[in-house]
């Protein structure tokens, strides 16, 4: 028996291919939306992986440093580093801000790290060009996605930094590329006040009789010095010694240092379950809507194609074609359209995914799930057309 669906497709291949192309673009958008979600999840995991930390010590009652603002003193790391089970501890600051690249702005996460500590937690994991930060000021290592090259100048707040190293896949949970600068500079950048504010603050302090007492020399200077100092960081990242139990060490730090401590699992839960949860739901909604739109389009196309063959179906029925053959013809066309659409969608998504400003991760398992979903959608969408075809009366082929 010849394939009626195949012959029909070959006969009107131009219409079929164009229809498949349109459907394919829609499927491509759907796959890309899935890829955007996967990219967000991957960015979050990469952020944790590349931090090189097993524990995050942050301000009490906060979800810092990625989900909430956290501020702790920068001398805490010393005592944490000396605790049982801790191999290394390091201060870090995180500040997502606009930085200057020539005449334009780039959104980036500025990370403050101790210079010269090459393998400490929080440091860029590996470089693709240049070297690590070795000086205490005005050097930077930038992620390649930021667009900076070796030797470029980065403007952050009032200072400029020279790019000495380029790293890769060091991004924030939002996908912004990271720029590493020396910790002191980062603290200054994060807590820097403008000159007018400092002037006003000095005047207010001088005018305060309890801070500017005539009989106590040096008090005012001390107070002013404490107001202009930057002695806080956002978190202390801890790397555990081999064999150390994360939960036990975290509990130890919580108890003795009276700070919040998160393990890797807890931090991942914060990033995935809280920070990008709304975005995930948003994308989920988009996926559902796109799936419904795709199904409606496939249903409409198959219905229209079948409508155009009412007379042929009546003739086929009259000359003895089984319903099974007619249903098979419609189903095969729907599935053929789905296969073509999926192929075009997959190719399109693969081509345009790297062009997206944020990371789009197209996973194989998503493609398999997408293909199965498209096939199910095509079968479901052809139900209307099949029902119509089964209702066609063979008598329609005869007379008036």
């Amino acid at each position: 028996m010849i394939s009626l669906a195949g012959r029909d497709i070959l006969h009107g291949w131009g219409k079929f291919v164009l229809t498949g192309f349109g459907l394919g673009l829609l499927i491509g958008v759907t796959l890309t939306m899935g890829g955007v979600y996967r990219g967000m999840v991957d960015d979050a995991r990469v952020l944790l992986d590349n931090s090189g930390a097993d524990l995050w010590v942050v301000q009490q009652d906060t979800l810092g440093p990625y989900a909430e603002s956290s501020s702790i003193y920068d001398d805490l790391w010393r005592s944490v580093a000396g605790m049982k089970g801790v191999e290394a501890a390091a201060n870090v600051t995180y500040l997502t801000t606009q930085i200057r690249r020539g005449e334009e702005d780039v959104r980036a996460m500025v990370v403050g790290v101790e210079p010269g500590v090459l393998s400490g937690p929080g440091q860029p994991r590996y470089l693709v060009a240049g070297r690590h930060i070795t000086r205490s000021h005005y050097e930077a290592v930038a992620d390649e996605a930021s667009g900076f090259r070796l030797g470029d100048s980065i403007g952050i707040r009032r200072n400029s930094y020279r790019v000495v190293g380029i790293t890769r896949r060091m991004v924030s949970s939002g996908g912004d590329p990271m720029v590493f600068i020396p910790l002191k500079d980062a603290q200054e950048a994060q807590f820097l006040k403008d000159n007018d504010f400092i002037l006003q603050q000095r005047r207010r302090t001088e005018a305060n009789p309890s801070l500017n007492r005539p009989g106590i020399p040096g008090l005012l200077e001390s107070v002013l010095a404490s107001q202009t100092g930057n002695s806080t960081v956002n978190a202390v990242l801890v790397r555990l010694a081999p064999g150390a139990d994360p939960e036990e060490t975290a509990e130890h730090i919580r108890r003795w240092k009276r700070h919040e401590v998160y393990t890797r699992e807890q931090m991942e839960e914060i990033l995935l379950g809280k920070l990008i949860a709304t975005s995930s739901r948003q994308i989920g909604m988009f996926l559902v809507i796109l799936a419904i739109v795709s199904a409606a389009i496939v249903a409409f196309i198959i219905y229209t194609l079948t409508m155009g063959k009412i007379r042929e179906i009546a003739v086929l029925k009259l000359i003895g074609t089984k319903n099974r053959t007619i249903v098979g013809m419609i189903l095969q066309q729907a599935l053929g359209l789905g296969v073509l659409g999926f192929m075009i969608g997959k190719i399109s998504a693969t081509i345009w995914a790297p062009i997206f400003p944020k990371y789009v991760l197209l996973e194989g398992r998503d493609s398999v799930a997408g293909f199965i979903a498209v096939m199910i959608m095509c079968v479901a969408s052809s139900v209307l057309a099949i029902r119509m075809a089964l209702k066609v009366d063979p008598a329609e082929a005869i007379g008036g």
Partner: protein
Amino acid sequence: MSGGKGITVEGLKKRYGSGETAVDALKEVNMVVAPGEVVGLIGPSGSGKTTLLKCLGAVIEPTAGKMTIGDNVIYEEKWKIKDLRALRRDKIGFVFQAPYLIPFLDATDNVALLPMLAGKPNGEARDRARELLDALDVAHRARAMPSELSGGEQQRVSIARALANQPPVILADEPTAPLDSERAMAVIRILNSMAKQYEAAIIVVTHDEKIIPTFRRIYRIRDGKTEEEAGEGRSTEPT
């Protein structure tokens, strides 16, 4: 070859609806068409021609009467054959006013489709199709799609399709309506020739005054009743 007795219809009735709104479309239809014979079925609009054709084609169920194809009673107060689809496929050929060829199949496959539906292997079905196309003088257009065929060629392909499973009965519904006199005569000539060659009983429903004189026997249907008339049986050969 069917080798049967053509088609016999006795006291066939068809009623649409029930009660006061019931309409008797066929009141008393009696017909006998022998193998190799071509008869005309004529009548004014609304006389019941189409209803009769649908009953004969096993598309709608009569209300009463008896229909026999060859030696097989196919209807007597109810369908005697369960698989009407197979009955239509194997026992009845259809030729329509418009050829209604399947637009995505070429001439050969349009004809071969029927034997394929009947379970014949593709090669055998295509051989049969080519044989019929050759008999109908359209073998040279065997690979052409319907849209590439002239009206006359399409009609010949549709006749070949009707003959594909060697049915004992062929129902032709206004097969010459869209054709000019010359082509109409050619179609009737072909039907006569095929009826003899394949021993098929052919019933031609027509309004076409040009071809009515060519039938040896005519059934005139009026108000749901048939009357048999002798036709002129004029030659269909060009003069």
